[in-house]
């Protein structure tokens, strides 16, 4: 596959993931060794120069986040690696943990050094329990070699430890405050904000939460920032992991330079649509992402271009649904997911999801009225504005996009 690139995936299949020695032999930990000679602010600046945006879905400027985390006054801080990728159609973090666990660890250790944190927590979803031995082994070997523990690499006072925690099948725990509640051993119900977790998160300490993919970029950027910057258009530098699935011939995770068109991703990388069928819709960024018809195909995959086309990068998922599935069946299945995953704490999300489910049933049966459609939109918009956390706020993205792009689905018969 010539159109993909190997910046983040450069180490894939190059070393035995159970052996730190092999990782070191291919140049592992050189970024960390460079990092400890630098001032933390300069590290944050190098990341900012690469225009890296957080890869969990919120796309927050990563250099800025690190800089802000550094400026928190509390002498004790924590880093959290969010490996709870629960968005349907998203499996890029799984690929990164499976194929390059030490690179992730190196990124987390550099994050710890930069933000002067003492502890890092990897919060991995239960569904990836088969990857636990890989990470536990990586943490153990890093401790044995002195990349974790006290006075790391001889730097006085650089004490840092990484812990692995497991989720237990709750999508909402991908949300920062719910995630820290879960690490504390409680049910993962999102907290009220403020205070924000960057000031008061896990165990009430300043907490910097980063996605697996974001942290996996760090070592590469410190080693070869210029290579990273050579990819993508000027306003959207670098590479991105996308997970393409649904009705495509070659579903999988692909590392692309930003700026590749959606058509190239789907047809050249993922092998096109099964049976050469027409595309009904494409969903970007998982179940909480927006949908668009095939007219989106020639849009370049960048943050701004996708936004301009009414969709977004989100988690990096690209779900292709062909003509065999109707828009209403798609929405019903997506709604079932959110009805299941709403934690039930705040009324807009709990009640909204219930009533949208009921209204969608009417639309499917064709028994809906014009006022039902109006109500559907009203509830969806209310959820977006008033829900406590991102789950409720984004749950109806697909529905609202469907009302815009596929109005015939909601026509009153």
């Amino acid at each position, binding site marked *: 596959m010539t159109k993909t690139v190997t910046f983040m995936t450069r180490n894939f299949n190059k070393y035995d993931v159970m052996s730190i020695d092999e990782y070191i032999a291919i140049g592992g930990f050189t970024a960390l060794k460079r990092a400890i000679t630098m001032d933390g602010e300069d590290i944050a600046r190098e990341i900012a120069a690469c225009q890296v945006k957080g890869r969990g879905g919120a796309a927050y400027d990563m250099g800025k986040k690190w800089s802000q985390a550094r400026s928190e006054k509390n002498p004790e801080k924590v880093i959290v690696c969010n490996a709870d990728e629960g968005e349907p159609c998203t499996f890029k973090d799984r690929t990164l943990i499976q194929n390059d666990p030490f690179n992730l660890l190196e990124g987390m250790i550099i994050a710890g050094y930069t933000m002067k944190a003492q502890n890092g927590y990897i919060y991995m979803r239960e569904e990836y329990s088969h990857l636990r031995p890989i990470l536990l082994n990586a943490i153990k070997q890093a401790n044995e070699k002195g990349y974790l523990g006290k006075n790391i690499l001889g730097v006085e006072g650089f004490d840092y430890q990484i812990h692995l925690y497991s989720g237990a099948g709750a999508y909402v725990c991908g949300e920062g405050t719910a995630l820290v509640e879960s690490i504390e051993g409680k049910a993962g119900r999102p907290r009220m904000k403020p205070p924000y977790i960057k000031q008061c998160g896990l165990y009430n300490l300043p907490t910097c939460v980063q996605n697996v993919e974001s942290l996996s970029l760090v070592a590469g950027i410190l080693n070869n920032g210029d290579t990273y910057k050579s990819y993508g258009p000027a306003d959207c530098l670098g590479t991105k992991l996308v997970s393409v699935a649904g009705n495509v011939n070659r579903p999988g995770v692909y590392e692309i330079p930003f700026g590749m068109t959606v058509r190239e991703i789907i047809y050249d990388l993922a092998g096109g649509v099964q049976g050469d069928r027409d595309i009904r819709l494409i969903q970007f960024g998982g179940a909480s992402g927006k949908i668009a018809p095939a007219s989106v195909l020639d849009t370049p995959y960048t943050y701004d271009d996708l936004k301009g086309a009414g969709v977004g990068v989100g988690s990096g998922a690209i779900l292709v*649904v062909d003509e*065999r599935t109707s828009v209403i069946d798609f929405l019903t299945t997506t709604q079932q997911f959110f009805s299941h995953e709403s934690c039930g704490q705040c009324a807009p999300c709990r009640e909204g999801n219930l009533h949208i489910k009921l209204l969608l049933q009417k639309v499917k049966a064709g028994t809906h009225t014009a006022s039902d459609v109006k109500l559907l939109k009203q509830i969806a918009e209310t959820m977006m504005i008033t829900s406590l956390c991102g789950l409720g706020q984004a749950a109806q993205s697909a529905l609202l996009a469907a009302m815009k792009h596929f109005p015939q689905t909601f026509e009153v018969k």
Partner: protein
Amino acid sequence: MMRDEKGMMTPELRAEIDAILTASGNDGSKLVGILLDIQDIIPMHYIPEEVAYYLAEKLNVKVSNVYDVISFYASLYDRPRGQYPIQMCESIVCGVNDNGFVFATLQEMLGIGLNEATADGKYYLECVPCFGACDVAPAVRVNGKVYGHLNSREKIEAMLAELV
């Protein structure tokens, strides 16, 4: 090792639970992970009431806290399932790859409905949200292992044959 089917605490089970608790430093903040580990070693893959009470006592947390956690998380169960709980993905990616065929075929082959166990307690069928195996959709997950590309009767039979 024999254990009471109803999940009563046997000395062997108690010893295994104690080992899990010791490994996690008897730390109540690790409750979620502890419950998952214990559920793994219980033959019917759930948290029996007696175990929940035992944990509350050992970790010095309220029983209501233990049940708050068990009832909140979808991967923790308070009712016996089966030796091999077959988790069928019901999310959209498996959905557009005909997971309906997987549901129907498994129900027919095993002669049980959703959330039911076979008479011998060996198999149990349940639906779960996406577990990130979209590249091999339609997929099921059994005791942590993913079986994908289940688009024919033969492949489903082969998957069941592995569960022994």
